[in-house]
């Protein structure tokens, strides 16, 4: 049943009924065979999204039509993660004089975000009320899309009121993998990873894609690079069942990362002299360390929020490393008992012999800083890298992007940031602080992604 009290902003219809108040009409269409709409002057709201099928980094235009003018409405988005958790976002609007709402034009006056944010319903997604704690939205299965259900609701309400207020809806799919992109599991020469190839004959320029200590095999950024024309190889190095040794330690060393780079070089569909490396968090250290080898010549490096050295000793040969628990002396806690790893990567705390000798760098390096990074000392490490390069007359190789209000997890755009999320469950539940405030972090993801792709184009295609 849809009914509500009189709302301000009534209007007259032109069909002989004196006053038609949108809100007074009732319908029972949910009852099969029940009473149907009979008034021919009752409007039929419509919600459209364009495009309905797109890549994760594509914008989407969401609009509501055929609504009463200057009427309160809510647009909400709901989506299920691969783990089955429900995420949702909503925004409150007042319709225009012509009875439309357009998220590209209109400001949200309440909800998951404020102001005019065309993509706010996507990066503003939060776990739905009642969801498990400490969630972080990460796509595990890149071969399927995120299915977003968007609804237009009557009044300024929350998504929980959708059943009784829904006026119209539309479904959109958001993909990491474009049609024709190929996903290839790699288990060769001890190297554990997933290769994504764009459609077409190739050869292609390529990226080696490295993530942080969270471990496992994170594929989605690589899938997106392949959707943008680059062969991309996501590499696992810790916390994967196909890697040797205990999963809570790094049991691979320099030879492993070199093998991975060479595997890419030797691939028949990759240009051997057009390979870049991207690293996030601890992946930054691995990126810099790999590029430091005289026989590894990447075309460019992209470093996001990570250290130029390590507290862990990474051996030259594949060997066991010291346990991460030694870092604990640098861990700090907030009032809720959430841990921040930030101090672990302070230059002063990094072992001097681990600091990468950037003097030997020969290719452009882009360093991306989230100024509210609570997991790594990104600003300090960026400064360290910049100073080192400056001192050796190589400052022209260095580009820094610095984003106020952005946190540690600067990822592809239009996906939500988690300021804190579950890190480990043993010996007890521990959540870690990533940092980042919703709107500035979203802006950082959007801007940095654009600049990352431009940087790759400049250095890998020209």
């Amino acid at each position: 049943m849809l009914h509500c009290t009189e709302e301000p902003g009534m209007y007259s219809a032109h069909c002989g009924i004196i006053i038609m108040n949108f809100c007074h009409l009732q319908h029972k269409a949910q009852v099969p065979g029940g009473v149907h709409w009979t008034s021919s002057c009752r409007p039929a709201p419509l919600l459209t999204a364009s495009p309905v099928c797109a890549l994760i980094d594509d914008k989407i235009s969401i609009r509501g039509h055929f609504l009463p003018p200057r009427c309160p409405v809510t647009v909400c988005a709901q989506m299920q993660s691969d783990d089955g958790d429900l995420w949702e976002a909503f925004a409150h609007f007042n319709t225009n004089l012509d009875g439309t709402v357009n998220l590209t034009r209109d400001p949200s006056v309440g909800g998951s975000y404020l102001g005019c944010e065309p993509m706010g319903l996507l990066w503003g997604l939060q776990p739905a009320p009642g969801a498990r704690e400490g969630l972080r939205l990460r796509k595990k299965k890149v071969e399927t899309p995120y299915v977003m259900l968007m609804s237009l609701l009557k009044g300024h309400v929350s998504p929980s009121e959708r059943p009784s207020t829904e006026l119209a809806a539309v479904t959109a799919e958001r993909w990491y993998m474009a049609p024709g992109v190929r996903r290839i599991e790699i288990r060769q020469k001890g190297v554990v990873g997933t290769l994504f190839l764009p459609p077409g004959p190739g050869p292609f320029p390529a990226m080696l894609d490295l993530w942080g200590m969270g471990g496992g095999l994170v594929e989605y950024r690589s899938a997106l690079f392949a959707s943008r024309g680059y062969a991309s190889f996501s590499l696992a190095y810790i916390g994967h069942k196909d890697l040797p040794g205990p999963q809570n330690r790094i049991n691979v060393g320099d030879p492993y990362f070199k093998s991975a780079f060479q595997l890419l070089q030797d691939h028949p569909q990759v240009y051997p002299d057009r390979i870049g490396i991207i690293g996030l968090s601890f992946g930054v250290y691995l990126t810099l360390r790999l590029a430091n080898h005289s026989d590894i010549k990447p075309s460019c490096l992209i470093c996001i929020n990570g250290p130029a050295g390590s507290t862990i000793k990474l051996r030259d040969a594949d060997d066991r490393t010291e346990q991460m628990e030694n870092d604990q002396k640098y861990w700090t806690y907030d009032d809720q008992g959430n841990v921040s790893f930030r101090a672990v990567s302070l230059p002063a705390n990094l072992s001097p012999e681990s600091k990468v000798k950037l003097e030997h760098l020969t290719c452009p390096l882009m360093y991306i800083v989230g100024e509210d990074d609570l997991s790594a000392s990104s600003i300090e490490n960026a400064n360290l890298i910049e100073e080192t390069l400056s001192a050796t007359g190589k400052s022209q190789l260095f580009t820094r992007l610095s984003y106020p209000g952005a946190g540690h997890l600067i990822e592809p755009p239009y996906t939500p940031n988690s300021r804190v999320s579950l890190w480990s469950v043993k010996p007890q539940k521990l959540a870690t602080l990533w940092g980042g405030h919703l709107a500035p972090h979203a802006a950082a993801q959007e801007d940095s992604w654009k600049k990352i792709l431009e940087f790759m184009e400049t250095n890998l295609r020209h």
Partner: protein
Amino acid sequence: MYINLRRKPLLSVIADDLSCGGTYTGKEAMGLLWSMRPVPGSREGLRLRKLNVCIPQLVNISVYSGHVGVGFREQDPLASVLTERWYMAPGVRRIDIKEKGVRGTLFIPHGPGPFPGLLDMWGGGGGLLEYRAALLASHGYASMALEYFNPAEVNTAELELNYFETAFNIVRDHPQVMSDRVGLFGLSLGSIVSISLAAWSSVVKPRCCVCISGNHTHARGGTIGDVFNEFITNVHKVRMDENNYEIWRGMGLPIPDDISQKVDVGKINCPILLVNGDDDQNWPTVESAEDMAQMMRAAGNEHLLTRLEYPDAGHLIEPPYSPHFRATKFLKDGQKVILLWGGTTKPHSDAQEDSWKKILAFLQQNMYSSSGPRAKL
């Protein structure tokens, strides 16, 4: 397999650039799609129609070095990309309909509803074509593609107007359809049915009608088979072109003066949109539209009529960016013939693109807007 020929030596932004040769020339952002044609060596008279709307049409777009015209399969492209073209948006539901003797497929948009509805009818080629109904549902209309006439199936010729009235009511009575906002959408024979229902049915009250390449020149009563056979009794008026393709438009001329030989369009009381190509070689649809306008003017309901006519467009005006077919195979009396539909590729494709936009605007105005049905666009 369909291919495309386009001559461009460098990698560049196709939408902004001019093609200087190939299956189209000039600046055409969608030219690669609408100018596709069967590869050399294919069977004659093919027509590209999506039968399974639940999966996309895959289009492989490649760039070759130099100005190449033939032999694409033998050479390696420089680069290629794969796109998916869908008739069905995510969330649209497809429902088989087999009730009260009616056969069709209903497509319901995503959302709570209720939605305006459409009965979607194709032409005398018969069968059940779902793609336009799926596309209309993707634009917010609960649409039923109706299976009704098949020249190869004798029993379907016995269908009368009440078959269509029953079908219309199935859409109208569906719990997710607004009962007072159901329209008719037809092409060719489907348009003839729509015009007939709008004028003569006391049971069906369409909210509006979209009639592509239709006509009003048939007498009241009789079965759908009668209607079809009326058209093809003037067999002596069929001409053949230089390829031996059949031109049927002569069979529809002259437009009779006798009102009993025509649908009484003066009785139509809903907005009606006529879409025709002036190079229609299959039927004199423009002449018919002109006569309809005169009849409606005399009856005082001409304000309900909107006419779109496109120079050098043919009979088969379909949703945009699909290839144009000037002549294709058709089953007539159990025999395969090739009918000339007419139209030249570029103007026909422009007609498809422009008419679709205007059709959607017409439907929105009459089916979604709150200010009541309005005739003119």
